[in-house]
């Protein structure tokens, strides 16, 4: 077994036993990246020299604790001091922040080794990572397929053993959906659990930092480090932070699990449904109580999302005007011309489309019919979940309607592409914690099992995921990257 194949927990053991140094691990991981990155294309920025330096400093410090010596990557819209943060956009192609996002600072302080920045759909707008302004990332399980998105680079890198863990973000499924497509763990904490400071905003009321790993326990460890209140983010709540690893128990006896019938209806691939139902049977076998429920407003989640998210995005992305940083069109003759041509050239089509959608939804005369209505529907969606959680501990469903689709297959067909998020978006609308874990394969492609919990009850998700992991081996399956690029 090579060092790069080990999980975070296994790497910690190796370090503690003195079987390898942080430098050994970093070199092994960098070697793996050299080997497969040409096929995967997960990294926008790879900082080999910096990584080796950090690892050597880590070794010089001696005793290993926390994330000492553990390599990781950040989705390239999480600001990293001194390292380019592009958002996969021409607009920020050369932008180097002079500050760290809170999550980046916390991982750094915990001793982790930042290898680089991972690809995404431009400004996190997309579900396939094909909307990156630079290049698409490929699914390690089938290089002709997408890794999902928008955090596709993070998911693919973890699945391809280029990194033991990575951070992404999840606004409408951007962590869970690519985790599902790439066969890894993807965790989206409750809105307000993790600071958004330094995470370039897409839709502020929905964005949350997510974690990718290959084991449930690794995810809990990373959460322990990144979660918790931050005086720099007013939406990050002051709650007692539990030790998330304390929930890793192989015990779901009498756990009340609901599966919403709306998440198994038409449009959901029958193979996916069957695979998820097998997982539900497994939970029953393990002593959980499994019942069907209804989330009646589910069908409105996606259209609601496509009003709320673009509306917020239209304001969040307005600051990219060429005045202070990033791309500027120097040919423009006056300031208004500079604004429009900078934005016309700096943003890709999907970003421009969402900005226009959002601008429209907020326009005078349309606000009540669109944005305000969307906020009301959002409340109904949240009430659906509240009703279920009054009686159940956990909701289980598929993460995505299908397995990963082919590159190029849905380009130019936004409505089909948006359907990828139909099962993940409601969780963001309600601000709940959600997770995707591998639960099987269909024609060689991973299927994800989505777990949804009460607000700030990440513990139940971790417990149920851990129990499932103890009784399955899907998470151990490795993609074969021997195939040639097509």
């Amino acid at each position: 077994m090579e060092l790069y194949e080990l999980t975070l927990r296994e790497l910690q053991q190796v370090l503690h036993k003195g079987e390898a140094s942080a430098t050994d691990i970093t070199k092994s991981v960098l070697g793996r990246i050299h080997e497969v990155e040409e096929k995967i294309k997960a990294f926008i920025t790879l900082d080999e020299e910096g990584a080796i330096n950090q690892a050597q400093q880590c070794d010089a410090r001696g005793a290993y604790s926390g994330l000492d010596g553990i390599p990781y990557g950040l989705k390239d819209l999480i600001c990293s001091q001194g390292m380019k943060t592009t958002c996969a956009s021409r607009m920020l192609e050369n932008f180097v922040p002079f500050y760290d996002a809170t999550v980046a600072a916390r991982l750094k302080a915990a001793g982790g080794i930042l290898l680089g920045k991972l690809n995404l759909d431009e400004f996190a707008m997309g579900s396939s990572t094909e909307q990156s302004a630079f290049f698409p990332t490929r699914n390690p399980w089938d290089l002709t397929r997408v890794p999902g998105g928008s955090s596709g680079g993070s998911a693919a890198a973890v699945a391809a053993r280029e990194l033991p863990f990575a951070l992404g973000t999840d606004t409408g499924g951007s962590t869970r959906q690519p985790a599902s497509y790439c066969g890894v763990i993807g965790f989206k904490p409750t809105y307000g659990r993790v600071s958004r400071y330094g995470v370039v905003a897409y839709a502020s009321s929905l964005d949350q930092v997510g974690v990718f790993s290959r084991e449930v326990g690794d995810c809990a460890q990373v959460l322990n480090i990144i979660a918790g209140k931050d005086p720099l983010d007013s939406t990050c709540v002051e709650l007692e932070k539990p030790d998330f690893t304390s929930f890793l128990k192989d015990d779901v006896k009498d756990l009340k699990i609901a599966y919403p019938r709306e998440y198994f209806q038409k449009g959901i691939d029958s193979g996916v449904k069957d695979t998820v139902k097998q997982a539900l049977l497994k939970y029953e076998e393990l002593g959980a109580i499994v019942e069907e429920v209804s989330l009646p407003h589910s069908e409105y989640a996606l259209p609601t999302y496509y009003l709320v998210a673009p509306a917020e995005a239209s304001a969040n992305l307005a600051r990219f005007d060429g005045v202070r940083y990033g791309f500027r069109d120097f040919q423009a003759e006056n300031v208004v011309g500079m604004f429009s041509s900078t934005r016309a050239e700096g943003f890709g089509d999907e970003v421009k489309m969402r900005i226009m959608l959002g601008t429209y939804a907020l326009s005078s005369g349309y606000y009540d019919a669109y944005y305000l209505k969307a906020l009301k529907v959002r409340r109904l969606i949240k009430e659906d979940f509240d009703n279920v959680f009054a009686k159940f501990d956990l909701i289980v469903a598929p993460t995505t309607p299908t397995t990963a689709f082919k590159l190029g297959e849905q380009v130019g067909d936004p409505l089909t592409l948006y359907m990828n998020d139909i099962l993940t978006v409601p969780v963001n609308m309600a601000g709940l914690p959600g997770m995707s874990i591998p639960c099987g394969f269909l024609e060689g492609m991973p299927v994800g099992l989505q777990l949804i919990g009460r607000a700030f009850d990440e513990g139940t998700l971790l417990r149920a995921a851990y129990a499932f992991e103890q009784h399955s081996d899907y998470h151990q399956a490795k993609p074969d990257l021997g195939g040639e690029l097509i």
Partner: protein
Amino acid sequence: MNFETVIGLEIHVELKTRSKIFCSCSNEFGAEPNTNVCPICSGFPGMLPVLNQQVVEYAIKAGLALNCEIADYCKFDRKNYFYPDLPKAYQISQFDLPICKKGYLDIEVDGVKKRIGITRAHLEEDAGKLVHQGTISSTPFSLVDLNRSGVPLLEIVSEPDLRSSKEARAYMEKLRSLLLFAGVSDCKMEEGSLRCDANVSVRPYGQKTLGTRTEIKNLNSFRAVEKAIDFEVQRHIEAIEDGEELIQETRTWEEDQQITRSMRSKEEAHDYRYFPDPDLPPLRISREWVNDLRLSMPEMPEQARERIMDQFGLSAYDAGLLTLSPDLLAFFDECTHYYHDGKIIANWMMGEMSKLLNQKNLDIGQCRIRPAHMAEMLNLIDQGRISGKMAKEVFQVMFDTGSSPEAIIKERGMEQISDEATLEKIILEVIANNPGAVEDYRNGKKKATGFLVGQVMQATRGQANPALVNQILARKLNS
């Protein structure tokens, strides 16, 4: 036709908190460009606002001073527009739920008292400013200074209750004094910490509906507010009388030409696409906090005015002037600790001191005269050590140097001569040297004493105690 003028004012005041509204940058005025800035107030990617609690406290205090209802629940909204001095391309403001509403203040114009309604007062962040070479239209490039970006502003909107430019000015002066007393703003129009936009319309007397309204911007002094309103009212009336149609628009006051000029019409107005800022949770203000602040409010100008009228027998007019700013009142109050007669203090403050300050274009806060020194000077007059006339000279030196009057008269030998023996000697010399005048006096020309007193004053370089001189001279002449 007779017309009635209807005016409403929108006033922005900067709150003088230590740091900006959403970041920890200094809120100091006058720093080098782009030195009071950070990634948050310059709108860098990923940055989030965090509300400054002191800003909320100051807004509540301002609301209490303006007799407003303080909201128990309010929120912040994004006002979207592109401009190079607006780093996020949206301004965080309060749209439909302001922190303060339904207040009022009382004004008095030409002896007539009037209550002016305040519709609302809401919090927002200021934008930066652009620096041009020459004018905005001819400059080869413009520079952006973001020191002001994120400075806390309270926008106070009056009801359209004002009926003349005089009332508008009185409203502004009263508002300014209330906010100064509440201690929440410097209210300096010249530094932009108090800014005013005026909404003006006219209508025939008796008409219920309002006429077409125009908004005037770029009013940088109380005087400009008055002048611009007068100009605009005249323009409206002439247009109506000429049968021209007025359009609802925003106009700018051109100080050098003393006219208003059209900036943009209603059709060109921005659609700001307000929506709640998802980065800031709604603000809940506990009644306990409001009550604590209410109890901690300092004396307001009306109370102070009553108090000094009662205590010192000042006229309503004088007391009104002394309570225009807390600095004036504090000066007065401190003087009264060392000198008993408030009226005399008030006369000196409103007379000599105000004259000197106006000459130098200073305000009381910059005055070098200490209240204790002023009181000392008044005591010296009462003790006869200096005359009223000499006091004016001493006062000028106090104003220029900040020295105490005692030191000044010592240093300059300005002390009044009240020693009888000394004066008698001088007077006898004057009598001896001016036999003609003495002759005149004795022949009944009583006016000759004036000449003789003048001679004594000349001989003592004005330092002789005039009362004593008159007394001794009369005695000598009649003996």
